[in-house]
């Protein structure tokens, strides 16, 4: 017997790869857009919380 072709034998497994890639790209795209659109002054204020 051969121990190969695991994935080919599982029906519909390709959807996992596609979904993973999609989630990955979306996740970072959304996070980075939001982070860089952030208000600089507010950021500075929050970063001082431990010192207050």
């Amino acid at each position, binding site marked *: *017997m*051969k*121990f190969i072709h*695991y*994935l080919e*034998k*599982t029906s519909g*497994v390709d959807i*996992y790869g596609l*979904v*993973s890639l999609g*989630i990955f790209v979306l*996740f*970072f795209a959304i*996070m*980075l857009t*939001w*982070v*860089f*659109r*952030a*208000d600089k002054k*507010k*950021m*500075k204020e*929050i*970063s*001082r*919380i*431990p*010192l207050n």
Partner: protein
Amino acid sequence: MQVEKFYYDNKIVKAFSYATVIFAVVGMLAGLWVAIQFYAPAASLNLAATTFGRLRPVHTNAIIFAFVGNCIFTGVYYSLQRLCKARMFSDKLSWIHFWGWQAIIAAAAITLLMGYTTGKEYAELEWPIDIAITLVWVVFGINMFGTILKRREKHLYVAIWFYIATWVTVAMLHIVNSLEIPVSIFKSYSWYAGVQDALVQWWYGHNAVAFFLTTPILGLMYYFLPKAANRPVYSYRLSIIHFWALIFIYIWAGPHHLLYTSLPDWAQSLGTVFSIMLIAPSWGGMLNGLFTLRGAWDKVREDPVLKFMVVAVTCYGMATFEGPLLSLKSVNAISHFTDWTIAHVHIGGLGWNGFMAFAMLYYLIPRMWGTNLYSKKLATNHFWMGTIGIILYAVPLYWAGFTQSIMWKSFTPEGQLKFQFLETVTNIIPMYITRSVGGALYLTGALLMAYNLYKTIRQGKFIANEEAEAAPLLKEIKPGKEYWHRILERKPVAMLVLSLIVVAIGGLLELVPTFLVKSNIPTIASVKPYTPLELQGRDIYVREGCYTCHSQMIRPFRDEVARYGEYSKAGEFVYDHPFQWGSKRTGPDLAREGGKYPDSWHYNHMYDPRSMSPGSIMPQYVWLLDNKLDTSSTAAKIRAMKTLGVPYPEGYDAIANHDLMRQADSIAGNLKKDKIETAGNVEIVALIAYLQRIGRDIKAETPPTPKGESGSVSLNQKSKQ
């Protein structure tokens, strides 16, 4: 606006900080003890409780859950109150949490020394303790969220996100990996078997490092580093990216612990890819920490707290750079199963976790006692002893790992393996000695700290309730268009849910296909369930922690196939609850041990390993020769295995002991032929039965037909046969 007056609870912080110091010393002592056993096997004292296989889990569990665990709680209880400008939600819950956690530690130490273990690394504790951990963790969660909800500070500072992500992910990991079926009060079998068990275990194991040893400590870094340097973190933006990228990517990287094993290739590749990506957020975080000190490096020269933090953050950077490198298959082929891994984790453990804990204690204790540190000089000495200790610990082990791996893989020009396994071990003994010197130095430094802190406490006066004031949070005026993350920062529950979704995605996408593949995993017709005696023997193998030194996973390399035999196949492990692939080869691999030596060899070898292989560093297992085998558990074990899908015939549990005794007597008969007189019902006989079974089934396989399919049947079909 009316300012409210309230008090921070320092008493609970004090309790956790004492526990941190005590368990630092206890955990390190256990570590030093096992380190000495590498070159002085007699240090096992020939007692079951103090042999390497039982003491090593005590060391790892004590360091991770007792030392670092208490350190996390110290830091969280101190910083969360101040970041939220509120006292902890409930003093009662705080103390239930404290005493509950210490009780779990005590129970863990006792049960591990007695040999009650699930046999899964860093999750060795048996099911009643697993349940207790879950309950205490929930208490901690309620207390933490209660505090966050009654806070007087609008925004959740980045450290709190790290605490939230830690809480939710550890809960998820602990529950999923601890699914097991109880056989008795202190014995259970993992719900999963073989490949699936391995994947779940290392998904857990890797993320225990990520979400117990990393994210909470990063939270502490984001609080205590700006505090100690008296300046805000270098880039708050970077900390947001650090957080989300880290928790999103980390959860996928587990399979890098299983490269070249029988785990499906796609899962291995996924682990590698995400591990490489981890460099980015990890280094982002490290640089964020170090850059916070820009323009303040003169303070580092003066302040021991900052000294410890700089080395801690640097070690974090080194370990998180090395980790991805070790996840490359070509590097892993050399490093895996060697001391390289041990060196790697100790850069993280001693450098990152240890030094962050020390820095935090040196910062907290003088402040909570309203005094200055007793001696800066002692603390600086501690710093240097610790730093040199880390180097003396890690460098010899890197050397040992690399040397041994190269020796394993060496062939003579005639094509024979150049070295016996034992030669590769005796060759690196000097490195083991140096490593223990490094560890001892590090431990001495910690004792110095304990003394310094004790003197500090003696000269100060404890402030049990620290006064503070802040304005209460006003009811939200309907916000206009607002930046999303700030909305999130004000909604801790949304933060919790989002963190859970982010970490669950990785887990699901990785675990589910492997479980779907189950129906397709090429099960091997000749692989049969263990006989009752072998099953009992396997449980003894798990109990004695054999997996801490012996792997059962032959990787498809020329040298491993030449040394051990045919490489391991996924289908061979379908009845292994739990899997016992191991992660370190202090001794040789045992995946094809069955039939290699006569029964009498194993008997003598267990009695005194050096009588069979001179120079061996394996401990003696003398008690196995006398201990009566507990056959009263056989029926329950067979029933549990049947529940898990192991195809024993109906009603087999009732007659299992009959088969067990027949096989035991036959082994006793074999031993007698070699002039060894023993009863059949002793533990050694069961262990021999198991050792002689490992890896043999596949050899009985029928030759493949041209289509290559008839040699295998699916698990379902097989159970019907």
